[in-house]
């Protein structure tokens, strides 16, 4: 039987995109389907820590070793997505010395460079650290932008011939007897780049092999073919601060616990997190006390956080998994390792494997292992090159360092734009058109927004994750409409309105958990601004009835 594609990858998170790239680079014909935008699952809702391995150096040394290896690879192949912040494990007076020693030994065992700093030295690195922090271990943690990294993987997969379909939800697995041969997807707006309002369609895509990389949703996919994949989704909260209080990753040096890490992320710092099992990865409570706990607990490490402004909070679900019969009670004790479930070996159903568990930092190594497995099934002998081949944007990192071009932009805007675009900067920013700043908080220019629209169609959330536009302190109040107007005239008025609504809704969702102090003022100002300048509190033009413009006088 002729198939549409050799391999079909389900899920556009880091795992799925990583696998798609690896397969495509090995010359395998691959199609990836994702129900929302790329990163819509856990990948877009994680902490942004590029693990050095330090966090696992005591409890799980295999993971720790893998982390430091992959950490070093990603600094190379994804330099435009990674910021080499360094990290500290800080000890407070009440934290045990014995654990600090263990952590240090563990790092040494795993090949993680680690230095002990006195409290004073640690405060020289991070002046806002609490005065009573007594010691710290310095490790090469980093910050990573999951959106950019995931998109770069998908982009490179496409450059190697892959088909990437977003807004294409798998609604059924095609199974004949004991063989899975494809899926049925529902395209939200027809195949290809998304355009709002174009009618939805369904499509059957057949494949020689299916890779289920839907993370916390892997169980739901499995169930479509009566396979039992017992994922145990566990939620975690993250709170975004308006500015960076720290430029280094700050971990608490103690065994395990909630609210023990602050990661600098682009213009912000992100506090996290918790670990609590939930039944449904699409529907779980998001509670204010979780946010309060982040702020209260982490201000023990960095006291100015107590009074500082937060701009939003979000939750993500870990795709935790453990082999049947392990029976771990506390989700924090479930291994962070990943599992490759070959349903042929496991359930006697051929044509599909599922990947569950793992972490973002090691996505490439996971993808390599899975791709090896799939290639073996398909009889492909090409080997993996993803550890050496830089991702699009990281081909030539010298652009980020010496002689950075500013493309006529003011310095901080130029610097941030160059960092986001990496070696693509000249392609994107060199333009004869006027290039005003569209998003002032994040310093995103029109050229960058246009480039993103070119990649992703009328979906402004897809533009957002590519550019960071609307992710700053106004949370879109001042720029969503400017981003939307960039869609015109490529898209008509109705599409533009819909895209704007969708983006602004998404921005509002996270801001609901930050409504006090300055962010409350911001939200009030946004509301007033949108109401008075765009009628967005009650816009007759978006109502069902036609407006009788003749009823208006000439304003005389």
């Amino acid at each position, binding site marked *: 039987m002729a198939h549409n594609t050799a391999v079909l990858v389900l899920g556009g998170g880091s795992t799925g995109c990583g696998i798609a790239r690896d397969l495509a680079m090995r010359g395998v014909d691959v199609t990836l389907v994702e129900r929302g935008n790329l990163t819509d699952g856990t990948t877009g809702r994680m902490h942004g820590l590029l693990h050095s391995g330090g966090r696992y150096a005591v409890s799980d040394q295999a993971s720790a070793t893998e982390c430091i290896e992959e950490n070093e690879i990603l600094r190379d192949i994804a330099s435009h997505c990674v910021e080499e912040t360094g990290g500290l494990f800080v*000890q*407070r*007076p*009440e*934290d045990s*010395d014995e654990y600090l*020693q263990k952590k*240090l*030994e563990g*790092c*040494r065992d795993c*090949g*993680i*460079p*680690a*230095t*002990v*700093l*006195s*409290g*004073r*030295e640690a*405060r*020289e690195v991070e*002046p806002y650290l609490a*005065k*009573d922090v*007594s*010691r710290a271990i310095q490790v090469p943690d980093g910050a990573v932008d999951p959106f950019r990294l995931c998109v770069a993987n998908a982009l490179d997969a496409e450059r190697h011939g892959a088909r990437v379909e977003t807004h294409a939800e798998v609604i059924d697995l095609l199974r004949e007897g004991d063989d899975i041969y494809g899926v049925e997807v529902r395209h939200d707006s027809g195949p290809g780049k998304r355009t709002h309002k174009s009618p939805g369609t369904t499509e059957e895509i057949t494949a020689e092999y299916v890779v289920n990389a839907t993370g916390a949703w892997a169980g739901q996919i499995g169930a479509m073919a009566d396979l039992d994949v017992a994922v145990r989704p566990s939620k975690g909260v993250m709170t975004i601060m*308006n*500015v*960076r*209080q720290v*430029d280094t990753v700050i971990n608490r040096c103690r065994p395990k616990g909630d609210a023990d890490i602050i990661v600098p992320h682009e*213009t912000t710092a992100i506090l996290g997190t918790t670990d609590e099992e939930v039944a449904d990865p699409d529907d779980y409570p998001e509670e204010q006390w979780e946010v309060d706990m982040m702020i209260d607990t982490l201000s023990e490490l960095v006291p*100015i956080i107590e009074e*500082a*402004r937060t701009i939003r909070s979000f939750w993500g679900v870990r795709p935790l998994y453990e082999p049947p019969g392990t029976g771990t009670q506390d989700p924090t004790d479930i291994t962070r390792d990943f599992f490759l479930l070959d349903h042929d070996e496991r359930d006697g159903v051929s044509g599909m494997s599922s990947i569950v568990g793992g972490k973002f930092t090691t996505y490439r190594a996971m993808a390599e292992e899975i791709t090896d497995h799939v290639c073996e099934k398909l009889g492909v002998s090409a080997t993996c090159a993803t550890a050496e081949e830089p991702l699009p944007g990281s081909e030539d990192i010298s652009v980020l360092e010496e002689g950075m071009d500013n493309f006529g932009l*003011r*310095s*901080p*805007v130029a*610097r*941030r734009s160059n960092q986001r675009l990496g070696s693509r900067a000249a392609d994107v920013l060199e333009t004869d058109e006027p290039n005003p700043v569209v998003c*002032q*908080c*994040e*310093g995103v220019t029109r050229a960058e927004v246009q480039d993103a629209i070119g990649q992703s169609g009328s979906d402004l959330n897809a533009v957002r994750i590519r550019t960071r536009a609307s992710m*700053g*302190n*106004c949370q879109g*109040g*001042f720029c969503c409409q400017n981003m939307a107007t960039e869609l015109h005239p490529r898209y008509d008025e109705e599409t533009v309105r819909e895209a704007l609504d969708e983006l602004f809704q998404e921005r509002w969702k996270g801001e609901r958990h930050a409504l006090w102090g*300055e962010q409350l*003022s*911001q939200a009030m*100002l946004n509301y007033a601004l949108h109401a008075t300048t765009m009628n967005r509190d009650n816009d007759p033009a978006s109502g069902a009835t036609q407006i009788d413009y003749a009823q208006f006088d000439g304003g005389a």
Partner: protein
Amino acid sequence: MSDAQRPIDDSVPSEQPSTGGADEDDSGNDEFEPVQVFPEAEEMDLRPGADNCYKCSTCDTNCPVAEVDDEFPGPKFQGPEQWRLKRQDDHDIDESVMKCSNCMRCDSACPSSVPLSQMHNTARAEYVEENMSKFSREYLRNRMLANYRRLAPLASMFPRTANFVMGLSVTKWLGEKTLGITSERDLPTFATETFREWWTDRGGAKVQNENKRIAYFHGCYSNYNTPEVAKALVRVYEHFGYEVMVPEQSCSGTPMFANGMLEDARRAAETNVRELAAAIEDGADVIASCSSCSMSIRQEYPELFDFEDTETVAANTWDAVEYLRVHEDLTGALENTTVDDEFDDMAYHAPCHSRNQGLDGQTIEVMDAIDGIDAHDVGDSCSGISGTYGWKEENYETSMKIGEEMFEHMDEAEAETGLTECPTCSMQMEHGTGYEIKHTLEVLEAALVSDGGGSHAETGASSSLGEAEGEGKSTETGTESD
């Protein structure tokens, strides 16, 4: 050998384990704790200040430079946005910060207490430190303008020659060509006798009163160029029975902040804080006659420096008129006083730095109390000169465009004399209208001290009157300073 391979015990600093003994340990540390030392202003991390900004743009709409210069991105970008986009080790500051005139209007306009001028001042200093060539003409010129005080003593040693040479058009042309100082303006003339020379000759204070003392911060301009203002202050305060002290002092720092020369400003401020703190210790309050000087000591010092007593000095510094309004019955004293014709109709401009201190309304109120004076407020626009800003060739046009509104209003007001408290505003007012410009203290002197010449007999008389009054109030002042 990587650190990880070192024996653990070696790499653990010998700091006491945190359990027990923490107390001695901490106190032992305190002295050497580097982060407790206030960082150099250029290195301050002001990103947290961006938390207050909700991007309303009120600051932008109040910025006189942004209004006339499309190339200037405005205070919102300059301050909170630029800071928020910064990383700890980024050192490139956008050059547009040099277009900001440091008028501080954004500062007082912001409804949300964003520390805008502090952000501009540190960014400017960082720009000058990191991005401006120390050999460029611009740097030398700015350094010279910022350190006016160092040049002024030379000129005032030979004031007539200096005035003559500086007035020559060849000199001015050279100034523009070689230094970038606009030839459109007349350089300020130097007095033949500085205020401090006069003060020494006079034998210092004529009134002694340990209950009512002020330390006069005269600044550079009223010392070298307009000693008549400084003398007026002395006579008016002596009239109210104050003992005037004139401590050692350096430039207030205003022109240095505006030119990003924070190191120069730091040195000057250190002297001023030390000397003024000593005067405060002796029971004096600090009084300035120039609105930028008082602004600088009150707001910029505590924002940028952390000498011992910075806060005390800031909290005890006053504008000359403000102080009298609070501590004396100034309007009462002015009732039924009259002045000569030279003061009858006046066009008053409130300097931005007075506005920022909330003092923009006081002068008109005080003038209204004097019979025969009609003072017209010419509105709340900026004069456009902002200290050394309007002296630079590249800013001259912008400066005049900003000043246009004020010139028009002065023209429309029924007056041929200008009135203000800021020396550079007064230069701009004169330059734009040709009017003679007076300082408020000169008017007060004319009204209160019958013989403005300050003959010995007169001053003696007024001081004895002052002393009588002073005694009546001394308890009040006494409790004040407790």
